[in-house]
């Protein structure tokens, strides 16, 4: 109940600024289309209609059709499902494993935490695209691989923030008070520590979503991401790009959609950061 009320309070605060409000609308639109894609899509996204390839936007196909005559709007809507699945799963994976490793590092001694910090450094110094190429080269392209690759790439983000947050709170009087009552370390971490470091981590997660969307699109564009015929924003751009000489509509529609979604999540993330911690807003 309390969590719901707090969430509602923060969202209303996000919506108060122009950027935040716009971001919130875009985010909600993308999330809705991702969740209810089959209901929203006007056509079967994979139905080929060669007679109507490269159709300009009409009432029938409001965003036109691609080189196989597939309805662009429906493919975009279904592509949002892929984008959101990849983004949310990858972020969730990075958030959870990063937070666990970050908390662990903060609680360990300086020497014991070193391997974890080295791991973070190794991951962040490794170009994610090269990592993706290597993994796809070994295992072949698939959606779950994209999720894992992107998740691993983002893991140090969350790990470092979680560690820094825990380090500032580690000697806080309220944690000491719980220790004095006899609370176990696990109880202290889950009941008292996590709720207090969750804010910055959630903000970071929301700001990383556009990053994941673009990485996924990039990987799919290169043919390393989701497999055709599954509609991903990256593959849509790739398909449109190949037939750019015949029609600019598919590539434009897909790129604009990707751009708007990225912008929306970025605006939302920034407004969320300001709402959760006004001090951070001034620092940036």
């Amino acid at each position: 109940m309390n969590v719901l009320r707090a969430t509602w309070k923060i969202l209303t605060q996000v919506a108060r600024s122009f950027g935040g409000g716009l971001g919130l609308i875009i985010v909600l639109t993308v999330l809705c289309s991702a969740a209810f894609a089959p209901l929203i899509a006007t056509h079967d996204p994979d139905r080929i209609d060669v007679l109507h390839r490269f159709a300009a936007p009409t009432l029938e196909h409001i965003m036109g059709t691609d080189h196989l005559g597939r309805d662009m709007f429906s493919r975009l809507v279904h592509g949002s499902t892929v984008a959101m699945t990849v983004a949310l799963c990858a972020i969730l994976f990075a958030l959870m494993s990063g937070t666990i490793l970050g908390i662990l590092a903060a609680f360990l001694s300086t020497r014991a935490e070193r391997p974890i910090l080295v791991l973070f450094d190794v991951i962040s110094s490794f170009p994610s695209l090269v990592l993706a190429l290597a993994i796809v080269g070994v295992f072949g392209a698939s959606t779950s691989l994209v999720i894992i690759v992107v998740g691993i790439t983002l893991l140090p983000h969350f790990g470092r923030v979680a560690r820094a947050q825990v380090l500032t709170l580690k000697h806080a009087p309220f944690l000491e008070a719980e220790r004095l009552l006899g609370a176990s370390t696990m109880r202290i971490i889950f009941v008292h520590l996590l709720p207090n470091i969750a804010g910055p981590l959630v903000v970071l997660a929301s700001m990383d979503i556009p990053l994941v969307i673009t990485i996924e699109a990039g990987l799919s564009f290169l043919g390393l991401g989701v497999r055709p015929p599954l509609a991903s924003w990256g593959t849509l751009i790739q398909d449109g790009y190949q037939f750019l000489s015949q029609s600019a509509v598919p590539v434009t529609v897909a790129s604009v959609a990707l751009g708007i979604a990225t912008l929306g999540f970025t605006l939302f993330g920034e407004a969320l950061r300001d709402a959760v911690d006004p001090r951070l807003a001034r620092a940036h």
Partner: protein
Amino acid sequence: MTGQPLIAMTGISVVYPGGVRALDDVTLEIARGSVVGLVGESGSGKTTCCRVLTNLVEPTSGTVMIDGAPLAEIVGRGDLGFRRRIQMLLQDAVASLSPRLAVSTLVEEPLRIHGEPLTEGRSRITELFRRLGLPADIGSKYPHQISGGQARRVAIARALVLRPEVIIADEPTAGLDVSVQGDLLNLLQELRKEFALTFLIVSHNLSVVRRITERTVVMYLGQIIEEAPTSQLFAAPAHPYTAALLSTNPSLDPRKRQARIVLKGEIPSVVNPPSGCRFHTRCAHVRERCRTDVPQLRLAGEGRQVRCHFPLAGIT
């Protein structure tokens, strides 16, 4: 003092990495039902003393006995029962409450931690809130929504809900306005009678210590330098440091004002304490022996101890 002391610290030393000797050979007994005051300035080790008693810091050497059982063994067995027996009130009460939990949850936490039935516990909490003068609707509030005085009472409720025997209070009146500190001290004294509590009160407020404690322990640079019944200590301090410390307490009544003994110099660092008597660098009565010989804590009259070669009082 007859019978076994409830708490006995023997030869406790705490050395932090980097050579900081926070406590040096501290021996202290607290009798059941007594109220002991611990005074000293920064670096004196009074906070470390509390942290050793509550097992937040493990002593480098020495033993702590609780009711005749060594604390190290109790902890080694993984027995958290001693946490019920010794509770501590932290100095900053507002910061000692987990900020994302409601007051009702906070007060039930001790019960959950020790696996006590909540239904029976809740009625105890209601009774405690009433006893502590907390409004009934405070349970739904969060720590940042309550006043400093209320936060202190909530912290006391959290400590008392486990029915402890010992309460260690670190600066119980720090940060409280003069107009409300009396209320809190009265409350602590009443609770002591009702719950048969033993109190260790750490404070820099000498008036507080003088008014509510039975024995006073004075610490300087990690050592106990004087221990005596409070009335005797305030009437005739034996250690020159105690005398100087007591003289700094300003009084409103010009007739009671005593000549302030102003110590020269600063408090030396615990990393590199002075040779001989640790107080010799600031002592007005320093003699040659004080610079070289380390004084031991020795008896100075009935129930009094002092760590000084040439005490001002008590030894005839």
